[in-house]
């Protein structure tokens, strides 16, 4: 059999999912608009005291990113499950975890990267300094893929269940806690003059660990859901 390699297959998975994300733009925009609105509501509610806003800024942006990321999780496998594409993933002659990594990667490119790019503009509402904004972007850049990777496990486990959305939140939010602490902590540490290096390194370590282990867990969960 003249073979397209696993790399090509994964490339096709990414390409297909990105094409789908572009054609169904409403989905991507929903996540982004949700993020923008949540982050913008806080200054309106808390009032214009710059000091308060500056302290809570990183935390708010990170919590909003976390919720936005979770909002988009439901779509990760649901449509593939309904139209039978997921079955084809399972009978493909490639490791399922590799294909899952491709899907999660595409999901992050479509829903995580826009958050990273728009975050500094939202941070301005909180009077964050240029240096803080840079750290915020860095921490989101390292952290949002971890959110997608961890969330994929929850999305796979709740596939085809009624009320899956709420269940995903219960399953996944506790796993998000370390990422939230390190992500928001990085900006605070930088603002306090301690340097964000430590926090960012830990985030990077989480990313490596998650990229290595979660696709395997997600693949196992998918097999169970489809059995």
């Amino acid at each position: 059999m003249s073979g397209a390699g696993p790399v090509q297959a994964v490339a096709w998975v990414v390409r297909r999912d990105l094409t789908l994300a572009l054609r169904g733009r409403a989905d991507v925009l929903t996540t982004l608009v949700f993020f923008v609105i949540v982050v913008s509501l806080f200054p309106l509610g808390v009032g214009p005291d710059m000091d308060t806003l500056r302290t809570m800024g990183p935390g708010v942006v990170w919590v909003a990113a976390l919720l936005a990321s979770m909002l988009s999780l439901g779509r990760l496998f649901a449509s593939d499950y309904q139209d039978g594409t997921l079955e084809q993933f399972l009978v493909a002659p490639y490791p399922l975890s590799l294909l899952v990594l491709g899907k999660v990667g595409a999901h992050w490119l479509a829903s995580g990267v826009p958050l990273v790019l728009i975050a500094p503009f939202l941070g301005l509402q909180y009077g964050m300094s240029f240096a803080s904004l840079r750290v915020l972007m860095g921490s989101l850049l390292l952290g949002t893929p971890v959110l997608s990777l961890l969330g994929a496990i929850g999305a796979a486990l709740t596939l085809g269940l009624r009320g899956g959305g709420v269940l995903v939140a219960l399953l996944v939010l506790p796993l998000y806690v370390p990422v939230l602490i390190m992500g928001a902590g990085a900006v605070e540490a930088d603002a306090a003059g301690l340097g964000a290096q430590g926090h960012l390194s830990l985030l990077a370590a989480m990313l490596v660990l998650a990229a290595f282990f979660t696709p395997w867990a997600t693949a196992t969960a998918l097999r169970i859901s489809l059995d």
Partner: protein
Amino acid sequence: MNRKLEGDDLGSVRGDRRLFEHVGFALEGGELLHVTGPNGAGKTTLLRMVCGLVRPEAGEVRWGGEPIRALGEEYLARVTYLGHLNAIKDELTARENLRAAAALSGLDTPEARVDEALARMGVQAQADLPVKVLSQGQKRRSALARLLVSASPLWVLDEPFNALDKGAVETVRAAISGHLAGGGMALLTTHQEVPIAGTVRTLALGA
């Protein structure tokens, strides 16, 4: 190159209901296994079992004498599975769907091959339209075009003739016959009478 596919003493339990037990079959190159039975007899489950999607409650499926669980991807590279779901994306065109599906099953499909497959299934005029504007039958045709680019020796087809008109049924029937004549094997469920040239075995479930 073609080896034997065997199902040995297979049993399946869904929930707390026993679907079937002690089901066995053997299939060699050039043979077709027609799985029959009333609705709910477990035909789809049996087919999914052969693809490794469902773990058998009892017994095992073997390819060339080895359990398919142990062979893993080496076995899956030899299977083309067409479920009763089309596995095509509404927002993509028929051509994009076919190319993505071919890449996923490990095929490097040249553009000419894709065009030819779509033409044989009679959807070349709709090849560059998003699949969501096509009719049910046309969607099924675009999904079935996958068979025409497939190079795997084992086809597992769940109700392939659903929603197809006479002409398309004839095309698929010819494709299956050609596949068998070339030494391939196929598992098939259908409620229609479809005469297929070659050795046809029948496996009746729930009888």
